[in-house]
Every structure is written in structure tokens, then in C-alpha cells.
């Protein structure tokens, strides 16, 4: 089996594990479902690399999240744009009668919910990111083809990068491209499982550049994934919001 196909299959497996409550670096939590939303059917899970991923981009100022399709009242509301000013997006896991089952950018990691299809525009992307923590590698795929395969820094043992399926929730351009985060930083839909907050903010996991390129390839971060600045710049010019990120062991 080709390497790419093998990795694609591995991603599917990892995703399957996540959705059945056995996956991810945390490994101990059953992925949350907002308000008791049931896990989607296996047929509804996106197959990374096999088919384009579907991304739901909000077209309303407030996106209502429901625990079940058809519920009369939402379990939560997410503003569009998000607090950083980025358009609110979701990774689509499946659909039922005008409702979309989506991965949510809220803790705990793996939270899912249902949104009304009319509240979003659904678009697709062939891109997806795989982070292999044991190998300290970040790979960008387009379908089953590797676009980038580079070394990456991950979290330390005390502040690990949590495993599981996430997606790119926002892209920030740092005012100081030579700072800690490099020129660009992606905010993912996932959160640190070891930190309650970071610098007074929610401990959102990111993928970003660095001003310490010599540390790329080591376990040094507070949970974020760091790549060289030229790499994050390439990614910033390529990937859409909503791109799936599969963080493996």
C-alpha cells in the first residue's frame, strides 16, 4: 500500500477511534457530545484523504448549536465572526434532513453538535494536516498526496499536544513576524488538556511559526505545534479555515 494511502487509512482509523471514545492523545476522555448529541454513524465520519472534507462557514451573526437535530432550543450559541474576528467555521461530520453534524471549536476536545444547514455555506477542501507526535512531523496532504512533510515541535510531557481530530478555526497574522509565534499562527478547534489557561486566555492549541527554529523537531512547547517560519508561511497561503488536523500519537 502506498505510504499516502497507508497514512490516509491510519487517519481514518484514528478518527474512528476518536469517535468511539478511544482515540486522541488524552486517550481517557470520551469525546464530548454537546448536550448529549449522539455519535454520528460510522458512515458519516469524514475519511481524510479519500474524499474532500466539508467545511461549514457561518453566514449568520450567531450560529445556534443544538444537541440533536430538530431540537426546539439550542444548547449554545457561537458568534460569527469569532472573538478574534475570524469567520466562524465548522468541520462537517455528517448530515440529517437539513441539519449538519459538526465538530465544535469548544472544550472539551471532540465536542460535537448540530447546526442548521441554512445557517452556513458548505464548501470543500482536499487539504488536511497530520501531526505525528512521536516522529515530530507535520504533513500536509492534498487528498492522498503529500504537499508538505516537515519537522515540527510539539508539547512537552507536562504540557502535551493533545491527540485527536481538530480543524483550523482561525488564522492570525502576527504583528511581529519575528516573535514567538512567527509570522502566522493557526488556532485549532482543540484545547490543551493540561492547562486551564495560557497567559490569561483559553489554552487553544495552535500551529504556528517560531523564533527558535533550532527547537523544531523536539518536545518543547506548551501544547502548540511549531514549524519553521517558511513552512507556516506556505501553509498560510494554501489552507482554508476548516482544514482538518489529525494529531496522532
Amino acid at each position, binding site marked *: 500500500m502506498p505510504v499516502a494511502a497507508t497514512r490516509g487509512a491510519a487517519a481514518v482509523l484514528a478518527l474512528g477511534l476518536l469517535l468511539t471514545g478511544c482515540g486522541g492523545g488524552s486517550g481517557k476522555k470520551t469525546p464530548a457530545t454537546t448536550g448529549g448529541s449522539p455519535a454520528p454513524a460510522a458512515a*458519516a465520519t469524514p475519511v481524510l484523504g479519500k474524499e474532500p472534507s466539508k467545511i461549514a462557514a457561518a453566514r449568520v451573526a450567531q450560529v445556534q448549536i443544538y444537541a440533536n437535530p430538530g431540537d426546539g432550543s439550542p444548547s449554545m450559541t457561537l458568534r460569527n465572526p469569532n472573538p478574534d474576528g475570524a469567520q466562524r467555521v465548522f468541520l462537517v461530520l455528517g448530515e440529517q434532513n437539513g441539519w*449538519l453534524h459538526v465538530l465544535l471549536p469548544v472544550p472539551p476536545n471532540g465536542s460535537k453538535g448540530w447546526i442548521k444547514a441554512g445557517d452556513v455555506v458548505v*464548501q470543500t477542501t482536499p487539504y488536511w494536516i497530520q501531526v505525528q507526535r512521536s516522529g515530530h512531523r507535520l504533513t500536509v496532504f492534498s487528498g492522498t498526496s503529500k504537499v508538505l512533510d516537515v519537522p515540527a515541535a510539539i508539547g512537552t510531557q507536562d504540557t502535551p499536544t493533545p491527540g485527536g481530530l481538530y480543524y483550523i478555526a482561525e488564522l492570525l497574522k*502576527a504583528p511581529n513576524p519575528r*516573535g514567538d509565534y512567527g509570522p502566522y*499562527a493557526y488556532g485549532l478547534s482543540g484545547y490543551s488538556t493540561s492547562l486551564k489557561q495560557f497567559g490569561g486566555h483559553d489554552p487553544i492549541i495552535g500551529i504556528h511559526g517560531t523564533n527558535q527554529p533550532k527547537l523544531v523537531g523536539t518536545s518543547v512547547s506548551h501544547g*502548540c505545534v511549531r514549524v519553521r517560519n517558511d513552512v507556516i508561511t506556505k501553509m498560510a497561503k494554501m489552507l482554508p479555515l476548516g482544514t482538518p488536523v489529525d494529531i496522532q500519537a
Partner: protein
Amino acid sequence: MRLKTAAVLAGAMALTLVGASPALACSDRDAGLKLKGSCGAEWVVSNPNDYQIPFTWKDNAGGHGSDVAPAQGSIQVHSTATVIEVDAIKPDQYNHRPWRGHGAIGVLHCKTPTPTPTKPTPTKKPPTTHPATPTPTKSTPTATPTTTPTSGSAPVAKPVTKTPTFTG
């Protein structure tokens, strides 16, 4: 409302239109929203700009709502009325202050009501790769493969200039 309008006469499948207006005194540049519709089908709002534009809409059938036109993309408005107006909202201000006069209006002239065309939905066979599992005893909603029409490829993310505060 002094908006540039245009109408295209047609039969059961009329095509429209158009219009953005710099008519009112306003220092902002035109939002450039475009409307396209056909009898019996939902209106489509197109946004040629490289940034999203929220807008409100109302039609002559009592319908109204708000949406966001994606950057260099289009969205359907859930209205099949013959007349519709959209008003752009400043994309950098989410206080719903109108971008006065910078919207579009569409008019259709339909001879006869045309039912919304329906396409037969191809029956998808369930995946056969999964091993047999016990039939759930409780009826729970489960997701099925997505059939919502997609609006093409997702565009490259537009960065927001801001100091990151991620976990680093």
C-alpha cells in the same frame, strides 16, 4: 429606496439581475452585491469582493432575513418571491448599520408559477465495509452522508492581524 434596478422579462424561467447603487450620499464604496434569480427558484446573492459582506433582505412576499455573502462567492437566499431587496452591512462593523443605498434589488416577471425543480435523489447504498452490528434498540438521530449542495472549494484562509495567544 433608490437602488438601481433592472428587470429581465421572461417566461416561466425568468432571469435577472442586477444592481448596486451609489445613488445616495455615502462616502463608502459600493458593496457591489449582485442578485440572480429565476422563477420558482431561490435568489442568489453574489459578492465580488475579497471580503465577506453581511446583508439583510426582504421580499414582496413578506419574507425577510439576514445572511453573509462569502468573499468572492455567492449564497442562496431562502426566497422565491418575484421581488427582493438586499442591503449590505458594513463588513467591518457588526452593529448592523446599513451601508445605505448599497444593496441590490431584483425583480422577476413570471407568467406562471413554476414549481421548484426537483431532482431525484440518487439512492446511496450504505457502506458494506462495516461489520454487522447489533441493531440499536433506541431510536437515536444519526448522521448520514452529507447531501447539502456545496459552494465549491473553500478559499484560502484570510489572516486576521492579531497577536496570537495560543499555548505556544
